[in-house]
């Protein structure tokens, strides 16, 4: 699998530029996403990882154009969504598709699989007749490994299993031949046994169709499997705290939060640890602070094992490139790690 390439002039396929989302509620403003910069190139996969409530779904919805951000810009092929004309908007809508988490809610219960797939094909003039739509729908179902497709086309969602429904939802996202699919926890509602099959199918789409993915998950094991050859962005309370190549982030996590997430994945081999060992890796608290009352300085400091008083609770660490030994292209936002790396650099 390739890492994905930027187009000839270097513009990424989709770019989030200082995107913010503030929800106004009765209790106060909830900053769900607080300045996120991310980009995906053609055919690339970007995994967004984080605990529930960290803003990864909101970020994904903004990227897919389902919710306009309250701040910042979303650029598709270098053009900001908010400045697009109707013609460009149609191109964007066809280029970026979203797969919901819950396949029980994302399919219209009163429409057959064929009706669900045929509607976008007919609407966008990709199918000229009912027969044509039927044949294309068959091919789409084959792409998502629902065989034989004829058996599924006349079924209603309630006649399908969760895994089959999610495949239909993916097939629907593929109808307009998108260059990017944003998948929001697309596997989390499925049984573990079905999950792997769906992930394999999505990986196959990546290689065969060259579709780019923004893949949202709370499960690092899934991110590691699906994000191979791509990049990973770890989010905490509405911000990206670590960003880099999937393999490197998982093999050699730098931000204490990423380490904590990786430690939460049970492994057979306990020696598989990062730079800081033992005691220091234990979180000081498990409670996620409320978005209504964010901690001062680094928002992770109340839970962080590397917390240093006077530094972490006062200054907000920026997300900046960090020279990790043997690695490349890593962004981390942590005062302590940055100092440690700088010291190690001086010592050598």
């Amino acid at each position, binding site marked *: 699998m390739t890492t994905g390439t930027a187009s000839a002039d270097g513009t990424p396929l989709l770019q989030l530029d200082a995107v913010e989302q503030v929800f106004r509620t009765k209790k106060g403003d909830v900053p769900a996403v607080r300045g996120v910069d991310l980009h995906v190139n053609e055919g690339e996969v970007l995994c967004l990882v984080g605990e529930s409530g960290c803003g990864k779904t909101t970020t994904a919805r903004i990227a*897919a*154009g*389902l919710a306009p951000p309250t701040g910042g810009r979303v650029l598709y092929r270098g053009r900001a969504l908010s400045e697009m004309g109707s013609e460009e908007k*149609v191109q964007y*809508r*066809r280029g970026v*598709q*979203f797969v*919901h988490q*819950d396949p029980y*809610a*994302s*399919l*219209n*219960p*009163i*429409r057959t699989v064929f009706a669900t797939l045929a*509607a*976008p094909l007919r*609407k*966008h003039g990709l199918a000229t007749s009912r027969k044509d739509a039927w044949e294309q729908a068959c091919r789409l179902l084959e792409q998502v490994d629902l065989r034989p497709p004829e058996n599924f086309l006349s079924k*209603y969602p*309630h*006649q399908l299993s969760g895994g089959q429904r999610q495949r239909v*939802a993916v097939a*629907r996202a593929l*109808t*307009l031949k998108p260059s990017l699919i944003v998948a929001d926890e697309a596997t989390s509602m499925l049984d573990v046994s079905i999950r792997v099959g769906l992930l394999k199918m999505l990986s196959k789409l990546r290689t065969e169709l060259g579709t780019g993915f923004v893949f949202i998950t709370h499960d690092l094991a899934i991110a590691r499997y699906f994000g191979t050859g791509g990049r990973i962005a770890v989010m905490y309370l509405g911000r990206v705290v670590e960003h880099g190549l999937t393999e490197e982030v998982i093999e050699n996590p730098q931000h204490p939060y990423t380490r904590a997430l990786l430690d939460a994945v049970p492994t057979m081999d306990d020696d598989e640890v990062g730079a800081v060992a033992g005691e220091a890796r234990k979180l000081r608290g498990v409670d996620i602070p409320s978005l209504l009352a964010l901690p001062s300085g680094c928002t992770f400091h109340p839970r962080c094992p590397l917390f240093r008083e006077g530094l972490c609770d006062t200054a907000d660490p920026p997300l900046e490139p960090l020279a990790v030994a043997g690695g490349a292209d890593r962004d981390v936002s942590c005062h302590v790690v940055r100092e440690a790396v700088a010291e190690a650099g001086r010592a050598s």
Partner: protein
Amino acid sequence: MTSALAPTPAIQRRGLLYRMSRSKSGMAGFVIVLLIIGMTIVAPLVMNHTIAPDPAHAWEGPSGGHLLGTDNSGRDVLKQVLLGGGTVIFVGLGAAAVTTVIAVALGSLAAYLRGWVDSALLQLTDIFMTIPQIVLLAVLGSFFQLTSPILLALLLGSFSWPVLMRSIRAQVLTLKEREFVEAARSLDLGTLRVVFVEIVPNMAGYILINFIIAVTNAIYALVGLYVLGLAPLSGANWGIMIHQAWTYGAIYIASGTPYILAPVFAIALVQLGLVMLTRSLEEVFNPRLAEG
């Protein structure tokens, strides 16, 4: 009992009639409505439309020749009842159709589009809600000849939609947040398609039940107009019969009782059938009720 592996389908795709028959009263209502509609269609085909007056036999009580007696001019009451359902039922269905179409179209668009469209449509709804229907119809009735049943249906229907419009709007407000609507939107299927193909059919049961309730309301409104003498008393139907019986003092004549009670009973039977029918329909469209 279904196993946990096979999720219970939202709507069981067994025969519609089978599911309707699960409610006995609903099935009875269905049969009553079918019989009366059948009667209003068949009666004018097999019977003579004009019932000749026979002053010699005015105000006769029930007898072998006249099962329900005769009216003030000696016409057979039973024949009038059999022939007199057409207009009432036609106008009831027509007005209900007009009301339902307006309510569904405006309610769902207001909820889906929100913004100024929503506020404008809500304003319009408020205005229509404050119009006293009977008074307006009385005024219109004195200016125009409301002889055409189609015109009557249009008039009655175009003033009774606000309540249904608001409940449709409320339903769409929740439905449009569902993920399948979002998916349809991100596929750029177009507003009208998303609203009327993806969202509205999900309320089919709710709309049908409200349509039937609208039929009962329209029938009462129409009969009310006739009884008050606000609609032109040309032709013969149940409403006009009640009016005539009242005007000619049928309640003071012992043998006139069937004349005034027969149309009242016919109307009540239609309404009862319709109301009972909605119960069955509720079970058809809400399988959770049927489980109990």
